[in-house]
């Protein structure tokens, strides 16, 4: 729905929230459910209502805990039966500068202020520590916006006695904490307030009448920001930016105006704006976003345009270029199958409203921001939080290279005599081991991102993964696959719980980019040998159907399991007798 896209329509979201909620609930039946505790230093009701809308829009169905606003610190520190029973998946701490109990005065000495800063920081830090310890879940914390008045005028920001200075130092401590704690995320309220306009944002009427720390109209903006962090934590970021070319990446039409005639580069103001936009898109690559082209053009012209000497983006930056005269929705499907990615993980940017509408009508679930003026293009991509960063794993950073290597594999396969020959020629090496600390982040990320080759669709946080690994009752294996074209990184995760002589599989997933390479065989061979070594006799596999994991419905059957149960929802249980298991020995060299 368009009012969720930047610039969000807060008036509609506030006024029609009841109706919008009903609509969202009726459109989707495949929500992931999350429990979210909102601890507020001010009123949180409308924030919770709006957060609910944005999360539902992201496919997350939240249940909330909220309490009297003055109680957030006590709740967090000492717990409450209600909060403990609620057992949150996420804690969001919504505080503002008015919750800081003491500020420097003009009489304060430098040392006084340093001590006060330490104490104030400590007051919050012990609360975060406590929350992490008590609930082992991600904590999202607002940074502090600045007050709308400055006793010391311009010096308020630079003088150690200034309130603004104090708040900015406190924020720095908060950021340091975030750098040191992986499951702690800062919600940048300071930026939100600045971009919204501090005077309107901090309208004191809302604090004094209702104890809201911001004006009502700004609450959807705040809620979107929190929702962006949450959906990113649960792997619901977009993955691919699909770009139109003419009047989207450059001004003019390359087919008509020629490469010399299109506007990009330092010569004219419009060209500069396109350059800045292209540069931003190029930088998205560095956070793991894949780029593709979907343009109505002769391919030759498209490539020529992308090779414009002043253009930051080059053909090589894109993992797929579809420049032809086919309908764009068809091209979109072609890109999706080429990359083996869900089309709902795409963002499509196109200046032409008709083209956007055609793709929208195809109903792929992709994001299609409004691109009305070139000077707004960058914000239309950036502010929507499509690619919100909550963790940058090494895998994100090299993803573009991996997809390029895949394209080379496809070429090799086309030239190979048989599929077996092709697999052998890849010289595949797998590392299959118990979970290791350096991969915990990637493993958790995979459990949240993998939808298709995922038998149980169990979503795990990093702490869940750590707990599994630490427990004696589990066998947990990750699989990393490399071949002559490159390293695919960690691509498979399996984990099972030991009960007497059986291993019950709670996690079994694989990244689709290594489909049909024999990696699943390598994983099972290894699992069976580990299970036998500790005297187990059976592996019990579970398959829980979702709208996306149909491809592995018969996975266990293919692997030699026997079906032992099926319920009316299509959940199936499978059994493998280890005594009669014959290793599948795929064309992969396994390192333990």
């Amino acid at each position, binding site marked *: 729905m368009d009012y969720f896209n930047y610039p969000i329509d807060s008036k509609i979201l506030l006024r029609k929230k009841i109706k919008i909620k009903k609509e969202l609930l009726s459109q989707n039946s495949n929500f992931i459910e999350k429990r979210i505790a909102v601890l507020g230093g001010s009123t949180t009701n*409308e924030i919770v209502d709006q957060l609910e809308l944005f999360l539902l829009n992201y496919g997350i169905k939240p249940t909330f805990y909220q309490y009297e606003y003055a109680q957030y610190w006590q709740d967090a520190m000492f717990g409450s039966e209600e909060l403990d029973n609620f057992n949150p998946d996420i804690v969001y701490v919504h505080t503002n500068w008015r919750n800081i109990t003491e500020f420097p005065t003009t009489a304060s000495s430098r040392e006084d202020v340093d001590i006060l800063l330490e104490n104030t920081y400590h007051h919050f830090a012990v609360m975060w520590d406590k929350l992490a310890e008590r609930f082992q879940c991600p904590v999202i914390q607002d940074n502090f916006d600045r007050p709308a008045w400055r006793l010391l005028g311009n010096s308020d920001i630079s003088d150690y006695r200034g309130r603004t200075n104090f708040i900015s130092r406190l924020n720095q401590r908060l950021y340091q904490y975030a750098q040191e704690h992986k499951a702690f995320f800062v919600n940048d309220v300071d930026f939100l307030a600045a971009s919204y306009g501090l005077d309107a944002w901090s309208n004191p009427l809302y604090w004094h009448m209702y104890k809201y720390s911001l004006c009502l109209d700004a609450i959807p903006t705040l809620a979107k920001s929190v929702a962006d962090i949450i959906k990113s934590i649960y792997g619901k970021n977009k993955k691919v930016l699909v770009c139109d070319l003419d009047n989207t990446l450059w001004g003019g039409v390359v087919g008509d105006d020629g490469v010399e005639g299109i506007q990009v580069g330092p010569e004219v103001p419009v060209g500069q704006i396109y350059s800045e936009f292209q540069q931003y898109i190029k930088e998205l690559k560095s956070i793991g976003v894949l780029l593709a082209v979907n343009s109505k053009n002769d391919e030759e012209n498209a490539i020529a345009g992308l090779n414009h000497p002043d253009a930051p983006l080059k053909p090589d930056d894109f993992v797929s270029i579809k420049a032809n005269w086919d309908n764009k929705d068809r091209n979109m499907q072609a890109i999706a199958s080429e990359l083996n990615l869900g089309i709902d993980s795409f963002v499509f940017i196109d200046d032409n409203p008709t083209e956007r509408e055609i793709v929208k009508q195809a109903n792929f679930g992709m994001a299609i921001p409004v691109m009305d003026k070139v000077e707004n293009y960058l914000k239309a991509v950036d502010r929507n939080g499509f690619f919100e960063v909550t963790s940058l794993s090494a895998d994100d950073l090299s993803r573009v290279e991996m997809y390029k290597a895949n394209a080379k594999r496809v070429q090799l396969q086309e030239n190979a005599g048989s599929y077996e020959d092709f697999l052998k020629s890849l010289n595949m090496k797998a590392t299959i081991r118990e979970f290791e600390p350096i991969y915990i982040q990637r493993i958790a990320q995979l459990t949240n991102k993998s939808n298709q080759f995922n038998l149980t669709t169990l979503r795990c946080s990093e702490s869940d993964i750590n707990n599994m690994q630490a427990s004696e009752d589990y066998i947990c294996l990750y699989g990393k696959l490399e071949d002559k074209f490159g390293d695919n990184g960690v691509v498979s995760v399996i984990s099972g719980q030991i009960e007497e002589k059986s291993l019950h599989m709670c996690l079994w997933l694989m990244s689709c980019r290594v489909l049909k390479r024999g990696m699943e065989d390598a994983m099972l061979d290894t699992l069976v040998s580990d299970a036998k070594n500790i005297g187990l006799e059976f592996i019990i596999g579970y398959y829980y159907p979702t709208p996306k994991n149909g491809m592995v419905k018969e996975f266990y059957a293919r692997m030699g399991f026997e079906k032992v149960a099926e319920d009316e929802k299509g959940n199936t249980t499978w059994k493998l007798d280890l005594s009669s298991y014959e290793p599948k020995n795929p064309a992969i060299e396994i390192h333990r």
Partner: protein
Amino acid sequence: MSREEIYKRLNEVFQDVFGDDDITVNDNTTAADVDGWDSLRHITLLAAIEDEFDIEFSMGATVKMKNVGEMVDYIEDEV
């Protein structure tokens, strides 16, 4: 703007805010008559009315209004 016209638009605001297309309000309607009209929903309601009629309620005014009739009086004066 006539009182009638104000009521027409006001009813739409009420219907949106309370998520019930059957709501109609009149001079004598009070919070007790509308399901869900609590202090929290009141904030949303006032903001939606301000937006609909492009007016601003002063802090004092919102506290004083006893029923929808007084609300419409205020709107009538402001638009």
